[in-house]
């Protein structure tokens, strides 16, 4: 047992519970992650104590809440190295962020006959909002395909971006394939043609270091709950120039400058896109969540554990992750057998510890139900990526996605359970 991972696990109370009378093995981290104590205590403190509406009042309590809310914005800015606070818009999640851009950007920049280019490995959240938006203007969706390994056919990108394409939207890492996409290259090719790029970073932000200035993407979105923070909160990073040109998405309080019945002027960024009372508590949890992640990545001096340097934690987590990846990849093929894994990049370093697969002649929901009885939480079904699964001829799949607190022992139990389930079903 890895001592450091064990210490990390102690920070996540949800991990020590039982499910169906067995110790919980939580392998659905791509859907949502568990929360560390620092996040949980901030949630409690802000709900029960520092609870006052932000940006609106002169009294001390409101000021304290606003400081935490705006502090989180600054922490997000630093975490992704955005130039200014104006670039960081708080939303209710990655889905809301993409909907905001799809609606507002397409309204401003698309006309009849124009198109949006999306990648074939997209989550439904990066498909449907664009469909809704292009439908309104009479435009269309174009798709950048994936090859049989699950890698984007990047060589087709240049020819796919014709003069009608007004924006490219793709995921940093697909929630099914777990492959780190070559987003730097995508941004470069699109920018050479003067087309902006949105990156769906819901999975990417968790596993990769993101520097939006170096990457030069125009939009980057992610959800707080997938990165160890609270649910109902998310981020939209956007370039200031574009955000300023885009019309507001929703109207309401806090997003206005002056309101007259004849004409209203809008607040400057970022509040222009934050109508109504924001989820200030959820958004504030980004501070402890990102700080925790920064410590585990070894990017912060201030120690997570008194007697261990953050660099040591980082090394240990990386090693465990590599061990899990190697073990699961091998065991699926050689111990479970008859397994088809979706997402096999030529360079194995491009794969995160996320495995979507099917076992021959076994339905994914049957396997998931048996694993549930064994205390193992994994995902089954269409996983919000129906077109992608159809591409691989599947009507559903299983997915095990690992996080920093998962251990090799858990991975071993997961494989044993799969073997057992397969035997029961055959």
């Amino acid at each position, binding site marked *: 047992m890895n001592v450091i991972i064990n210490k990390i696990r102690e920070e996540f109370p949800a991990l020590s519970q039982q499910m169906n009378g067995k110790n919980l093995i939580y392998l659905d981290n791509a859907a949502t992650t568990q929360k560390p104590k620092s996040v949980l205590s901030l949630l409690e403190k802000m709900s029960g104590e520092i609870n006052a509406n932000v940006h609106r009042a002169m009294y001390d309590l409101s000021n304290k809440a606003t400081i935490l809310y705006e502090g989180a914005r600054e922490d997000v800015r630093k975490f992704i190295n955005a130039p200014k606070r104006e670039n960081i818009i708080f939303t209710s999640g990655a889905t809301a962020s993409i909907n905001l851009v799809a609606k507002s950007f397409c309204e401003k920049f698309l006309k009849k006959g124009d198109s949006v280019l999306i990648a074939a490995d997209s989550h439904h959240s990066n498909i449907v909002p664009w469909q809704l938006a292009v439908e309104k203007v009479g435009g269309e969706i174009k798709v950048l395909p994936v090859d049989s390994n699950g890698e984007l056919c990047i060589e087709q990108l240049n020819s796919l971006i014709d003069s009608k394409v007004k924006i490219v939207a793709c995921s940093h890492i697909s929630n099914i394939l777990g492959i780190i996409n070559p987003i730097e290259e995508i941004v470069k090719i699109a920018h050479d043609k003067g087309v902006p790029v949105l990156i769906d970073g819901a999975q990417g932000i968790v596993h990769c270091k993101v520097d939006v200035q170096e990457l030069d993407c125009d939009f980057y979105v992610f959800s707080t709950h997938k990165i160890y923070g609270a649910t109902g909160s998310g981020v939209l990073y956007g370039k200031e120039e574009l955000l300023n040109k885009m019309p507001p998405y929703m109207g309401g309080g806090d997003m206005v400058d002056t309101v007259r019945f004849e004409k209203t002027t809008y607040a400057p960024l970022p509040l222009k896109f934050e109508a109504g009372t924001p989820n200030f508590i959820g958004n504030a949890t980004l501070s402890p969540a990102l700080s925790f992640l920064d410590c585990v990545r070894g990017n912060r001096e201030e120690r997570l554990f008194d007697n261990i340097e953050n660099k040591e934690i980082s090394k240990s987590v990386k090693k465990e992750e590599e061990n899990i990846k190697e073990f699961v990849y091998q065991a699926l093929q050689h111990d479970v057998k008859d397994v088809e894994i979706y997402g096999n990049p030529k360079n194995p370093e491009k794969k995160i510890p996320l495995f979507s697969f099917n076992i021959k002649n076994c339905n994914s*929901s049957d396997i998931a139900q048996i694993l549930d009885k064994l205390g193992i939480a994994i995902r089954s079904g269409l996983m919000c990526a129906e077109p992608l699964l159809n591409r691989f001829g599947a009507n559903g799949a299983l997915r095990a996605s690992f996080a920093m607190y998962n251990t090799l022992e858990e991975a071993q139990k997961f494989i044993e359970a799969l073997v057992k389930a397969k035997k029961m079903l055959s």
Partner: protein
Amino acid sequence: MTIKEIENQIIEEFSVFDEWMDKYQYIIDLGKQLTLIDEKEKTEENLIKGCQSRVWLCCKEEEGKLFFFADSDAIITKGIISLLIRVFNGQTAEDILNADLNFIKEIGLESNLSPTRSNGLLSMIKQIKLYALAYKEKNKNN
């Protein structure tokens, strides 16, 4: 036998299982034994789509009694389907409409019928009742 009597028979059969594994194995075996639906009945029209698994269902009437044929791509779902069919097959439309099923809960499988499990089973029961309603109306008009 009445619907209630068949339900009680199933509850009795399941009472021998102490271990969840034995119970699931039994359901899996039932799923394997389920008479397959005719391939030509596996139409879009007869499909009940769930995110987790798909269910096909069709119904025939013989001498005032209803008979159901079903299939699913998930074997546990299929096993539960076979229990449902056992309960409803050969019953009248009237009795099916009046039936208030409780055996699924009694044998500890109620989570499979919860709306949060998108496996098509809940919709299947609704569809069975709809078939019964349709046949009842049809017979009334004849």
